[in-house]
C-alpha cells in the first residue's frame, strides 16, 4: 500500500534538479499553545517554476516543519480552502505559481477573522454573514410538476455570482470588514445577488430587507479590493452595486 505522501515523495526525487528555482517562503505563524504572539518563519526551498504555492507549502510541511498548518482540500481552485494573504494580496495558494513570486514570497493568514493556528482562521463569522442572507432557493408558489424552467436570458442575469466558492478572499480583503465584523461582507452579498436576480426565487424582497440594514450593502465603500481579490473573477463590486441599486429602486 503506497500512501499519497510517498507517491508525491517519489515524484520529488524523480524531478530533474537542473530547472528548479530557489524560493524563500516567509510565513506568519501563530500557535496559541506556544505563544500569544505571532512570529515569522522562513524557509528556502527549491521547486519547479510551475509548481503552485500550495505544493511548496506541502513540501515545507512534509519535509521541513510538520507543525506548519494551513487549509487545503482540492488544491485546484474549486474548494476555496486555501485563501491566504500572499505578498500583500488575497489569493488562493493553489492558483499562484512559484515562478510568479520567486525568489521570495510572504504568506499571512487572511485578515479580519481571528487566527486559530498559523494560516488557519475562524471562518464562522464569515459563514454567519453568508447564512444571514438566506443562500438557498425560496419559492412558496408550490412544487412544480417537473423542473423550474428559466430562460437563458434570465439565467444569464445572475451567472457571474454563481461562481462563488466561499473562499473568503473578497470579504477579508475589505477594509470595512476588517474594522467591523458586523458587516456581512462581499461574499454574502454576492450570494444574495445570486438569488435576488434569479427569476425562480421569490424571497428577493426579504433578502433586500436584510441587506438594507446597518450591517448590509450600504457599508460598502467601493474600494474594489474584493473584485481584485476574487480568484473566480467575479465582479464583486458590480454585484454589490446592483444590489444597492435594487434596494433603492426595488427593480429586480
Amino acid at each position, binding site marked *: 500500500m503506497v500512501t499519497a505522501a510517498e507517491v508525491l515523495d517519489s515524484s520529488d526525487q524523480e524531478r530533474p534538479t537542473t530547472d528548479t528555482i530557489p524560493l524563500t517562503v516567509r510565513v*506568519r505563524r501563530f500557535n496559541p499553545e506556544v*505563544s*500569544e*504572539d*505571532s*512570529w*515569522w*518563519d*522562513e*524557509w*528556502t526551498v527549491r521547486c519547479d517554476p510551475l509548481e503552485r504555492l500550495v505544493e511548496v507549502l506541502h513540501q515545507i510541511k512534509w519535509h*521541513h*516543519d510538520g507543525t506548519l498548518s494551513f487549509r487545503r482540500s482540492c488544491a485546484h481552485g474549486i474548494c476555496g480552502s486555501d485563501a491566504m*494573504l500572499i*505578498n*500583500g*494580496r488575497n489569493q488562493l495558494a493553489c492558483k499562484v505559481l512559484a515562478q510568479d513570486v520567486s525568489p521570495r514570497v*510572504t504568506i*499571512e493568514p487572511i*485578515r479580519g477573522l481571528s487566527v486559530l493556528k498559523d494560516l488557519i482562521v475562524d471562518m464562522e463569522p464569515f459563514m454567519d454573514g453568508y447564512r444571514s442572507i438566506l443562500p438557498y432557493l425560496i419559492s412558496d408558489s408550490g412544487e412544480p410538476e417537473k423542473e423550474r424552467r428559466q430562460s437563458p436570458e434570465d439565467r444569464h442575469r445572475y451567472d457571474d455570482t454563481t461562481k462563488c466558492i466561499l473562499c473568503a478572499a473578497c470579504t477579508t*480583503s475589505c*477594509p470595512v470588514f476588517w474594522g467591523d465584523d458586523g458587516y456581512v461582507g462581499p461574499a454574502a452579498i454576492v450570494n444574495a445577488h445570486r438569488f435576488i436576480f434569479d427569476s425562480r426565487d421569490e424571497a428577493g424582497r426579504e433578502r433586500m430587507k436584510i441587506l438594507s440594514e446597518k450591517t448590509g450593502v450600504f457599508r460598502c*465603500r*467601493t*474600494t*474594489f*479590493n474584493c*473584485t*481584485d481579490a476574487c480568484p473566480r473573477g467575479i*465582479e464583486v*463590486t*458590480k454585484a454589490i*452595486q*446592483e444590489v*444597492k*441599486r435594487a434596494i433603492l429602486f426595488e427593480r429586480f
Partner: protein
Amino acid sequence: MAIRSRKSKSDYGSIYRGHEGQWSWILHRITGVAVILFLFAHVVDTAAVGWGPEAYDRITAAYDNPIVRVLELGLVVAVLYHSLNGLKITLIDFFPRLVTRIRGISIAFTAVFVLTLIPTAWIMLGQAWDLARR
C-alpha cells in the same frame, strides 16, 4: 532550516496591496476629517460677528498670514478631493455598469482634480507670497 524571528503583536505585517479604490477611500476619509476640523475653526470665526464687525475683523485678520494661506490651500485640496471623489462614488453607486470602467473614471477624476488645482494653487500661493514679502 527554518530561520525563526519572533516579533511582537504590534507587527501587523505588510500593508494590503489593494485596488486604487482602497487608497482613494483612505484619502476620502483623511480629507473628510481635515475638512470637519477646519469647520470647527470656521464656526468660531464666523460666530465672532455676534460681538460686532470689529471683533469679526480682528479674528479673521489671523488669516492674513502666509502660513495660514498655505494651510488654506491644503483646505482647498481637501475640499476639492473630497467633493470630486464623492461625485465619483455617487456616480458608480447609481450606475453599476460604470463599475467595469472604474480605472478610466478614476484617471478622469484625478485629471480634473489636478487641472483644477494648478490655477488655484498658482493664485493662492501667489497671494501667500505677496503677504510674506510685505
